[in-house]
């Protein structure tokens, strides 16, 4: 399984964290289709937000949007009751990552971001999220999956 990239969006719809695990590009192969520019983050948010709303409309308020798949990648989505949204993009063959995203929330976000007394409550521009413990923990966790 390969994880390409990972995003966190706060309840104000702002992207507060992006990380990419793109393998180094081999000359002669087509450029990776999944870049992580800020426009992409906006596009991704727009997509998952619309999908989530549509899913709820069709399936009822308790239904949850979990993932979608294209020919190139699979996008996984997890939203906490406090409207924090986790998005992970992996290769098409990976199993459901919902549990993985939930674990990231519980073991990394809550422990290293929320419980850091010096981190602000609102993470404008990613403030307080990109601390060393969170970065290291996330990287280790994701590499452990691959």
């Amino acid at each position: 399984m390969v994880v390409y990239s990972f995003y966190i969006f706060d309840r104000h719809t702002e992207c507060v964290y992006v990380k990419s695990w793109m393998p180094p590009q081999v000359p002669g192969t087509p450029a990776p289709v999944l870049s992580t520019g800020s426009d992409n983050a906006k596009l991704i948010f727009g997509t998952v937000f619309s999908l989530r709303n549509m899913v709820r409309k069709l399936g009822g308020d308790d239904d949850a949007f979990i993932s979608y798949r294209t020919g190139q990648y699979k996008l996984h989505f997890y939203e906490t009751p406090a409207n924090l949204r986790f998005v992970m993009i992996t290769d098409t063959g990976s199993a459901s990552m919902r549990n993985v995203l939930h674990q990231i929330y519980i073991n990394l976000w809550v422990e290293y971001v929320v419980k850091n007394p010096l981190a602000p409550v609102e993470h404008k521009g990613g403030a307080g999220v990109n601390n060393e413990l969170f970065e290291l923990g996330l990287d280790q966790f994701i590499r452990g999956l691959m």
Partner: protein
Amino acid sequence: MAASKASRIGEEIWKTRIDKVNAELVTLTYGTIVAQLCKDFEDDYPEVNRQLDKMGYNIGLRLIEDYLAKSNTMKRCSNFRETADMISRVGFKIFLNITPQVTNWTADNNSFSLVFDENPFADFVELPDDGRAQNELWYSNILCGVLRGALEMVQMQVEAHFISDVLRGNDTTEMRVTLIRYIDDELPPEDD
């Protein structure tokens, strides 16, 4: 979710997933905070109430995440009655090891009371004997702020205040919690 199930969840989390601290340490620390506020604001008790509420609010904004993580909550409560049960039997249980009674519902199910049979903050406490504290200071007012902050993060705007306190000589300690509205999802900004 039935109240008994909420109780079971609260009990389970309290036993297995919570780091405990000495209760007297909590009581004394909280007492010190209130005493210091009274000193700083020169016994302006309404102002002390406001400051406690504000401190609680800031705690609540973060505490909700710990609550959601520890309780493994994946989805919202389906109605305000369920919310009330979860507050009492899971929230208060796991953080303070108490389960205040949920009671005195209004007919529209938007307002209830939490009656505290025990309150770890108020052990050993006597309010100042200056003739005003008994009528003006809500000693445990930080709890109102915590609820307000925590529920705001899960999109419920509530109003919470104490209406009686055994420290003031009332028979019970009772907090009134009223749902003002459910907050809508924030939408992404329009692209130019």
